[in-house]
């Protein structure tokens, strides 16, 4: 039994289903077995030699068994039915010794048709029916057999050859020995030549075929060559004996008897060859492991294609995939490609996901002989392609998230600048206006000689107002320093250093302006580091280094404080790490207890 092929590929699925395996197959097989038993019973009843019965029945059963397997395996081709037919046709002519004249003469007339079935079978491989020369050979062979049958049925009577005791032929129309001998000889000669031709076709295919065809089909081609050669000898002997009355090979006993036994047994070659081929193909799934192992990461299409070639044993296999940017397809190398039609020239399997094509695999049509291998390879490949699709999907989602995060960073930075501007042009400006008004009020109070209490209260209000203005200025600067936009990162960091509460030395080799959101991220990184240095680490000195690495900005803030800073404890440092991650940067902190803190940040530059 074939194991069910997972994820039956679409192109394969789309092919004609052929004969349905289940019921028809079982009925045919059961019928063939019943016929075998019947033949055996008749043979035993009529006292046929046991060794003949044994070999004859064995040949029939082997054919029937091989036919059953072949039919199960590839219901859409004729291999199975043809093998089954061979099994049945084998028994035609086995009734010679029954003593029933009707059966005997029918058997003699229609014996040997399994050679036609065999010829069609080997000529058809790997297609469903023989084509070209093969078709002519098949038809010719069938015609020769039909002529021979007709001649044997209606022209021949044992009495013609001096067998007076023999049962007369009940079908005979006219007894014309000359005509019979002529037709019999000619028909057998034709069969001989045609069988040799088929054997030669087998040999030629064996020699000239692509390696993959040879690999898949050599057992059956060898068997076909042998069986067809045997058939040719058989026909040649008939022709010779009919024409001359002498045996073709005049071997002494026991060689003669043994020779004919061997000739008889050669018929077993085809079903055995077929079985050997099938069993051998089953083992060919070995490279699958290599394919599966090769899928550890997401492999490149070229690697995948060569893994596929190794697994299928088909160096010409092509892995095509849909062009994500357009309607077409791409080869493994990334060149535009076309998916061929699944036909005699190419076998095509489509892998899809919810109807959306993921990949098309174009391989040698001879591999249709081995659907189990193709099915398993496609199943593994599906994993790979599916994996790749998920990976691409994930990557796309990650890109989306990254892009949206970058937009958020820019938007947040924009927002901070807007708030600072609004404070400056709004509240701060208004408070200055209030200051002026208050100042005028105080002057008026002096001029009108107002009560000292009022003047004192006005002075107190002025003081509060000044404090409010100072606070607001600090707040605005903390939200977004105007100097950063105006003078760039080093100047803004220098200004920051003046207010840091520790002695700050700024070392910078940055001589250009960077995107606003990166400048802001760098600025606030330094601000947070300096706040930590003065507030938590009790540092007295800090060195800020700004280094322009071309494709990245490096920031370092080193202090001489207490150390022991832990990003997992304070929200300040972990917030900083998040902030840097949002611009694809990262943060390292070395802060041994008692050894100062070294904060190092890196931001990629566009």
């Amino acid at each position, binding site marked *: 039994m074939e194991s069910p092929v997972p994820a039956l590929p679409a192109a394969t699925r789309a092919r004609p289903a052929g004969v349905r395996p289940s019921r028809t197959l079982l009925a045919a097989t059961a019928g063939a077995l019943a016929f075998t038993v019947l033949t055996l019973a008749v043979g035993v009843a009529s006292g046929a030699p046991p060794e003949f019965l044994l070999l004859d029945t064995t040949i029939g059963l082997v054919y029937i068994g091989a036919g059953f397997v072949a039919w199960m395996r590839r219901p859409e081709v004729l291999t199975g039915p043809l093998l089954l037919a061979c099994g049945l046709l084998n028994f035609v002519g086995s009734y010679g010794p029954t003593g029933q004249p009707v059966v005997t003469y029918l058997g003699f007339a229609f014996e040997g048709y399994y050679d036609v079935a065999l010829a069609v079978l080997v000529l058809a491989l790997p297609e469903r029916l023989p084509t070209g020369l093969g078709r002519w050979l098949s038809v010719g062979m069938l015609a020769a057999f039909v002529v021979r049958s007709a001649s044997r049925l209606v022209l021949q009577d044992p009495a013609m050859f001096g067998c007076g005791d023999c049962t007369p032929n009940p079908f005979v129309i006219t007894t014309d020995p000359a005509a019979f001998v002529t037709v019999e000889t000619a028909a057998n000669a034709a069969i001989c030549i045609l069988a040799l031709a088929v054997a030669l076709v087998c040999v030629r295919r064996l020699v000239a075929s692509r390696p993959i065809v040879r690999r898949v089909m050599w057992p059956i081609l060898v068997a076909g060559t042998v069986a067809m050669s045997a058939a040719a000898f058989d026909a040649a002997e008939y022709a010779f004996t009919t024409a001359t009355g002498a045996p073709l090979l005049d071997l002494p006993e026991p060689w003669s008897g043994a020779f004919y036994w061997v000739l008889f047994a050669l018929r077993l070659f085809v079903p055995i060859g077929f079985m050997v081929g099938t069993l051998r193909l089953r083992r060919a799934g070995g490279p699958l492991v290599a394919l599966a192992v090769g899928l550890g990461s997401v492999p490149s299409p070229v690697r995948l294609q060569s893994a596929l070639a190794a697994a299928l044993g088909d160096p010409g296999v092509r892995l095509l995939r849909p062009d994500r940017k357009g309607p077409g397809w791409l080869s493994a190398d990334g060149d535009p490609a076309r998916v061929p039609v699944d036909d005699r020239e190419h076998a095509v399997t489509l892998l899809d996901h919810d109807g959306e094509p993921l990949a098309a695999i174009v391989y040698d049509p001879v591999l249709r002989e081995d659907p189990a291998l193709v099915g398993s390879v496609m199943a593994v490949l599906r994993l790979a392609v599916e994996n790749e699709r998920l990976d691409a999907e994930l990557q796309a989602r990650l890109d989306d998230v990254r892009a949206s995060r970058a937009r958020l960073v820019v938007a947040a930075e924009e927002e901070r600048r807007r708030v600072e501007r609004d404070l400056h042009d709004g509240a701060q400006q208004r408070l*200055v*206006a209030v200051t002026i008004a208050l100042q005028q009020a105080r002057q008026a109070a002096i001029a009108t000689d107002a009560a000292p209490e009022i003047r004192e209260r006005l002075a107190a209000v002025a003081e509060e107002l000044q404090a409010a203005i100072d606070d607001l200025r600090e707040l605005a*600067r903390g939200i977004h*320093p105007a100097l950063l936009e105006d003078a760039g990162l080093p100047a803004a960091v220098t*200004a920051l250093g*003046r207010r840091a*509460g520790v002695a700050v*030395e700024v070392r910078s080799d940055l001589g250009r302006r960077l995107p606003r959101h990166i400048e802001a991220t760098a600025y606030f990184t330094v601000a947070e580091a300096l706040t930590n240095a003065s507030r938590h680490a009790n540092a007295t000195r800090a060195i800020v280094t700004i280094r322009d690495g071309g494709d990245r900005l490096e920031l370092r803030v080193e202090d001489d404080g207490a150390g022991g800073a832990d990003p997992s404890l304070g929200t300040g440092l972990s917030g900083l790490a998040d902030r840097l991650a949002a611009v694809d940067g990262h943060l390292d902190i070395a802060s041994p207890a008692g050894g100062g803190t070294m904060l190092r940040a890196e931001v990629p530059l566009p």
Partner: protein
Amino acid sequence: MIRAVVADDSAVIRSGVVRILEDAGMRVVREARSAAELIAAVDEEQPDLAVVDIRMPPGGNAGLTAALEIRARYGDRVRVLVLSQYLEPEYALRLLGSGAGGVGYLLKDRLGEASELADAALRVAAGGSAIDPAVVDELVSARRMTDRLGRLTDRERETLELVAQGRSNRSIAEELHLSAKTVEGAIGIIFSKLGLEEDARDNRRVLAVLAYLDGGAAGGAD
């Protein structure tokens, strides 16, 4: 009489400034609401003094840019006092670096003390310098972090700050209730302690002191 141009996009503040300047005996010949109007007014009026808001239309620190432009065009002939919300020594240093004499950088909230704006305006109009005490203070405190001002006595540091604000020796003497001669001697000592060369010109002296103070923080910049 000192002829002045006042530029600020806020009418309330503009009128407040105008009033303080006129109370101090100046004549405001033109008001401007944007950097472009300011430049045009200065070109036409050639005033003695321009009092300029640092942030003005068309946007950003257009006032500062216009002030530097005026300095570049007219040199010492048109003196510039910039009013700002930003406590940033960087801007003051940029103005001082723009040429000889007659510049000032004052925080806007000084408008609350009429005398402070008037003093600064007069000083700048007279070719001196006026740097907001808060700006000087920021530089001084940053500098003190490096501990190098420790060589100065408290009184000397106080004197240094007044010098940095652009005060004249006489004004410093008044502030500290000392004689002008004493102040002069004290400044000589301070300068030699700090290793600075004393320059007779008022604004050079301010720039030298501010640059010295700034060195503490901006040591390795550029």
